[in-house]
């Protein structure tokens, strides 16, 4: 299959690559760029584990082809804090036990980053709505909701 050249800015780094037009953005990020923090749970856009920021908006990277990201700005979970220096949202997840297996967690984080920018003081109802497109099978969401509340207090406004 023919490959097409693309230029994508991911987490502030420019990547020039040639990809098949059918390559999913999720596979491109994970396997071509080795940014494996983005996880794939269903590959049909329901679970939200693969959520990344596409020009600042949260999108499902399993529903987008890599060629569609040509010339766009992508952010993945790797752009947040490191293991030694967590982002306040990550810290809040840690402190509230808002993750168990952690597989869905990067998708939740990337959904919540723009949400908290737009809603620095969210109500519980707004939080539930915000994460309603992300499935977590382990936690029952209760602690995630508490973590988002805590994060909204921690994050600089």
């Amino acid at each position: 299959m023919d490959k097409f050249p693309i230029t994508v800015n991911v987490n502030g780094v420019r990547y020039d690559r040639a990809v098949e037009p059918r390559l999913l953005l999720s596979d491109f990020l994970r396997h071509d760029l080795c940014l494996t923090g983005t996880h794939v749970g269903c590959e049909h856009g329901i679970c939200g584990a693969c959520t990344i920021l596409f020009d600042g908006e949260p999108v499902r990277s399993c529903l987008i082809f890599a060629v569609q990201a040509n010339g766009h700005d992508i952010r993945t979970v790797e752009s947040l804090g490191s293991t030694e220096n967590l982002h306040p949202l990550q810290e809040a997840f840690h402190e509230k036990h808002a993750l168990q297996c952690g597989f869905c967690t990067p998708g939740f984080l990337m959904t919540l980053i723009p949400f908290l920018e737009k809603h620095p003081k969210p109500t519980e109802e707004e939080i539930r709505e915000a994460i309603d497109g992300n499935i977590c099978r382990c936690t029952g969401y209760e602690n995630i909701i508490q973590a988002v509340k805590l994060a909204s207090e921690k994050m600089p406004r």
Partner: protein
Amino acid sequence: MAGKYFGQPILRNEDAQLLSGKARFIDDIDLPGMLHAAFLRSDFAHARIKKIDYSAALKRSGVVAVYTAEDFGDFWRPGPLQVPPPTAIKGSVFNARTLVPIAKDKVRFSGEPLAVIIAESRYIAEDAFDDIIVEIEPLDAVNDLEKALEPGAPLVHEDLDSNLAADVVQERGNYEEARAKADVVISRKILVNRNAGAALENRGFVVEWEERSRQMTVWATTQAPIPLRNTIAARMGLFENQVRVITPFIGGGFGPKIMTSQADDVLLPWIAMKLKRPIKWIEDRRENFLATTSERDQVHYAEIALTKEGTILGVKDVFYHNTGAYDPYGMTVPLNTQTHTVSNYRVPNFYTQIKMVFTNQMVVTPVRGAGRPQGVFVMERLMDAAARELNMDPAEIRMKNLLIPDEFPLRTGIIGQDFVEGVLDSGNYKKNLEKTMEIVGYEKFRKEIQPKLRAEGKHVGIGIVTFTEGTAVGPYEGARVTIGANGKVNVATGISTQGQGHFTSFAQIVAEQVGIDVKDINVVTGDTAHFHWGAGTFASRGAAVAGSAIHNAAVKVREKIFSLASKIFEEPEENLEVGDGKVWVKSNPSQSMLLGDLALRANPTRGTIEPGVEPGLEATAYYGPPYGATGAGAVAMIVNLDPETMQVKVEHFVIVHDCGTAINPMILEGQVYGGISMGIGNAFYEKMVYDDNGQLLSASFMDYLMPQATDMPAKMELGHLVTTTPLNTLGIKGVGEAGAIPTPAAFVQAVEDALHGQVEIMESNLNPSRIFEYLQKKQ
């Protein structure tokens, strides 16, 4: 018995890696020269295979090899009986038909593998599906559990006379005599539908055969790393130490990942050895729905006999259990149903019969709850029917019949999944119910709130149920605890982890004994190169069974610390203290030594040692209980039903749970919350639907709905009781499945109550249209 570390809500060691995207999961593994596997799966549920022609696939650029059953020669054979049936149950019938790795001659469920394609990329491997011509003769499919046993039904396994997989009768007392004495006998048909584990991460398998060192390395998402290694080694003719199974971080388990000897772990090691290249297979969501494992499908004919005062005289339950196309997991699930049907109530006479049935559906193995929710659902529905008949309050009839602490330990007379007669070790069941009623405000809701809301036209209802959870079964687990020269501790155990927080809770157990901070304790689970004895993560046994082995090993290490330090300091052991990473003399704290330095001293490299002294600040220990520890609890749920849409909103959910000692209350609560969400999903959102042809109609997240954040209760409250088990030193019972077990029973009761008792619902998986159908039928 909370200490400085044990029993504290310590934040998890594993979080930073998981939160920053730096935790390695199976699909993150990338090896030089790695090939990718894809399985061509049958679209038919029941069919004869005439011919599979893959010659065109081999011509496709990037395809390296294609195999069907015939290509594996003598290597193809039905897999092992992963869980044999208990031999102790006299007169039981069990027909073992274990899973075949890839269909040969005949297909028995939709999604069964027909061919495996190995290619340079997964994309190319799946392209090759279109190149393969499968000639097939469809057969009538077996789906209905009762019709499956009728004469003339199509046979899933044609070498058997019928589709009966097992028939097991267990009885204590004499039900028929009890029935004859009863004032009231209530019979009901009760249905439980099939649910998926649906871990967010699908399964995966990566295998590398290193020819020069003759070592096979396997990465897998298994809940049973050691059994997996053992079966691979045996099948490949290798020693156990030539096969290393590593479980990376695993994205949820919930049961189905316990199953081994499936197409991937049987065929891919053979192919990797043949092609001399590493191979990776990552299951996709459709494959997970069609061809992993799931459970819960049962049809019960249940009966309860009582006095007119509401005292239970006996229970009879004859049930059909769907085991799917094969039964490699024995009878674990239906045996759990038998043991959990009457376990929390005083039922002197109990007759229970399993009729396990082969169908043309995916194989059944445990999913969080594992047969227990079915037993609890049946009993709780009978109790509700009895309460209605006798004009008693649902809470009152339960309180009257619950077992009391003086009755423990209580031999149940029913043999369970661990092959031994069940014994209820400890608990305070009435207290669980009392506390639940208190937290939810049961009396006030019944007498004040509900009448008021009803007067306003609201359809609000309350459900209240009790349950037990048999946990922490044998046979055993083991662990090795080692203090390193760096002053930190390494802990290795044979089970694997799917998000339960073992990297922290196990560290807490060790920290308490050796006085080294939890952050400095590295826990290794699921790597057979680190620890190679054990059974796996199932039956809510990790914390209690592996945790007890770890405790035993840590105690031995503590003893070694004192023994060696006593010699060095020339002080009796009782004058020493350990903590903060060092050991010192109580009367003279300046006389101290770092444990890392002591660890070095424990491995002398010159001179002599005393006879019997073993090197290192290291110890290995094992633990195996004579029978499992039983946790228990009660649930109350207030729901609000919208009479227009039939949508049910859980307004208030209360669970009081008793799992003995908590290692880490924060992690414990997280486990309970997660179980509840699965229980709510099972009750109102999730349902695996097969059509008459054996096609799974709900094989995606668009069709198989799981609870989302807005579906969860507006208010959740957890209460804890602690009745320690005498079965292990720490007093721990399991908790992993607790939330999932009672929730459907409470939900259905609450929905009936919200509908003013107009309808009786004897099935566990509802949805708005199903509730509407019940009301339509009534009118």
